[in-house]
């Protein structure tokens, strides 16, 4: 069942320096029980895309007229972008859609106990009594591997360690039984050993709860270990998408290849680190044509003139690059 369908999502911000394009014509689908990785560097538009799913972008965001986000739930479909009133958005903000943020310390209110925050959310989104909500919250804390959950329930965010806080954040996000979970760099602020624990936990939870997950990260290793499929973003565009195996083993877009080459690998310590030349252009100076042509090693004249479309190469593997599509041939 298709849980989420994003079609032609275009998102711009009105700023003092003009209208900035943050997301450009992005389309993807997500099934229930599937994990999709959204990879890209800072400024690639991955977080903004995810926030659009919950309408969390600030007031100066302007959505393109053709943009459409459809969420299919048990009791019908929700057209996310058509929701106008705060009250109607409750379903996509913490109800059917939950979000885990990068910095758990900044995401919990510092002066309210973890328990009270979890209870408040449950009472807002379900018909539970305070007592039931407390019971469910403690069960959830226990489920994510927090020992002595009933006493942690009464503690404040600053009393927990970083890994513990991120677990509590996950428990809180999952307690309303969401259909879609958005995880925005959930392991970036954590140490590797704790990151490994959180990745394992998230894998278990997908298996148990069967929700769809959008996993945002800049770390391709984390994607390889967690996601089923992946979309690579650059300057607001998806430049390549497909199954994780296909994209990592046989990257098609020059940018994806560049990202993989720049990554220090433990298998070959002598391999030189090859940076992607140049810097990411400022969003105010979006290149014409293919957005990546200013840094691309295989760019041709046509790349700076017209915009390459996403073209299917093989089954689910698609890429937006003139040169590569010519080389491999469209499916």
């Amino acid at each position: 069942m298709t849980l989420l369908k994003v079609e032609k999502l275009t998102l711009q911000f009105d700023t003092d320096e003009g209208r900035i394009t943050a997301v450009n014509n992005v389309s993807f689908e997500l099934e229930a029980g599937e994990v999709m990785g959204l990879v890209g560097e800072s400024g690639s538009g991955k977080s903004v895309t995810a926030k659009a799913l919950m309408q969390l972008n600030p007031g100066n965001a302007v959505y393109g007229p053709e943009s459409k986000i459809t969420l299919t739930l048990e009791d019908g479909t929700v057209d996310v972008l058509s929701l106008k009133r705060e009250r109607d958005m409750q379903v996509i903000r913490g109800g059917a859609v939950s979000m885990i943020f990068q910095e758990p310390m900044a995401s919990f209110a510092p002066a309210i106990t973890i328990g009270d925050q979890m209870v408040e959310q449950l009472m807002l989104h379900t018909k539970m009594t305070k007592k039931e909500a407390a019971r469910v919250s403690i069960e959830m804390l226990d489920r994510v591997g927090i020992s002595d959950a009933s006493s942690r329930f009464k503690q404040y965010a600053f009393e927990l360690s970083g890994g513990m806080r991120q677990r509590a954040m996950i428990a809180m996000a999952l307690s309303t039984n969401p259909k879609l979970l958005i995880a925005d760099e959930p392991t970036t602020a954590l140490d590797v050993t704790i990151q490994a624990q959180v990745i394992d936990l998230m894998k278990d939870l997908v298996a148990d709860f069967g929700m769809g997950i959008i996993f945002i990260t800049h770390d391709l290793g984390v994607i390889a270990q967690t996601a089923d499929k992946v979309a690579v973003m650059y300057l607001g565009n998806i430049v390549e998408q497909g199954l994780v195996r296909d994209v990592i083993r046989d990257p098609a877009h020059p940018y994806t290849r560049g990202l993989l080459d720049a990554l220090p690998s433990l298998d070959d310590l002598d391999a030189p680190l090859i940076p992607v030349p140049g810097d990411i252009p400022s969003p105010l100076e979006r290149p014409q044509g293919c957005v990546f042509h200013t840094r691309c090693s295989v760019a041709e004249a046509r790349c700076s003139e017209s915009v390459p479309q996403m073209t299917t190469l093989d089954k689910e593997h698609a890429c937006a690059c003139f040169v590569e599509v010519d080389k491999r041939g469209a499916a």
Partner: protein
Amino acid sequence: MSEEPIISAKGLSVDFQISGGLLTKNVYLRAVNNVNLNIPKGSFYGLVGESGSGKTTLGRAFLKAVNISDGEVKYCDEEVEYDLKTLQKKQLKDYRKRAQLIFQDPYAALSPRMTVRDIIAEPLEVMGLTSTREETDERVREIAAKCRLNLEHLRRFPHAFSGGQRQRISIARALVSSPNFVVADESVAALDVSIQADILNLLKDLQTELGLTYLFISHDLSVVAHICDHVAVMYLGRLVESAPTRVLFDAPRHPYTKALLSAIPSLDPDDKGNTLKLEGEIPSPTNPPPGCKFNTRCVHAIDICRNEEPKLEHTGDRHEVACHHWSELFET
């Protein structure tokens, strides 16, 4: 790289006072505990560990940016030899130009109100290394070119630059006083991977060109593996293992190093080879466990580990490890 150390630490400890005052008892936290370490001249020395392991504090102790509570640290180059614990004011001023720091966050490290030229020139002016404006400008242009900065950019302000360019500016600022020893504390952690490789290559090139010795502090083992020639691993203020990079990554001996290495997510989706998973988290340094500091998370811990702290032992060519049963573990 020579065998002679530029920095040598013996029994180095750093304490921070966490509470206490006029009427209450003073409580200290030992962030770095009894560390023995030599950084050979011309090396790219890596220091890894989780947050709270004391790696940043150790780096700062080498720069004399925190007080050395116990033990000794010596700095030695062709011209001078300093005992960092008892450095006089005048010597400290001289040491500041010989030892420098590159920060983690290039967004926070540069003043938004100063032009790039002024940012790079400031150390020269403060230390009185140049006497005329022309001389300063000359020196700034020289180092900026070495750090691959566009000279036309010197008149701009930092906000006009991307993360990678900003980090090149901070490197230029750190190197303008011609230091011999540079501490790079998580200097690529805030950068995107495509830029990270560029900065790492630059650091390496500058080392050859200027004859620098680096202490490269990082939590990212794959970066350290690629750039450093020797790596030391810290856990809860202690040095637990230290070895030439290749040896450490091919045959780690401390259970903590092994766990750290296996926690790196593999790029191969089918590689589920994370056999060694660490439970729990690093204990608080205010209340460290007795015995081996790693015993609370170690699968091999036995009684001796909970009671007696292991010493750092030489176990091979420049390979040191602090574990009670590294040899049994090594054989299996």
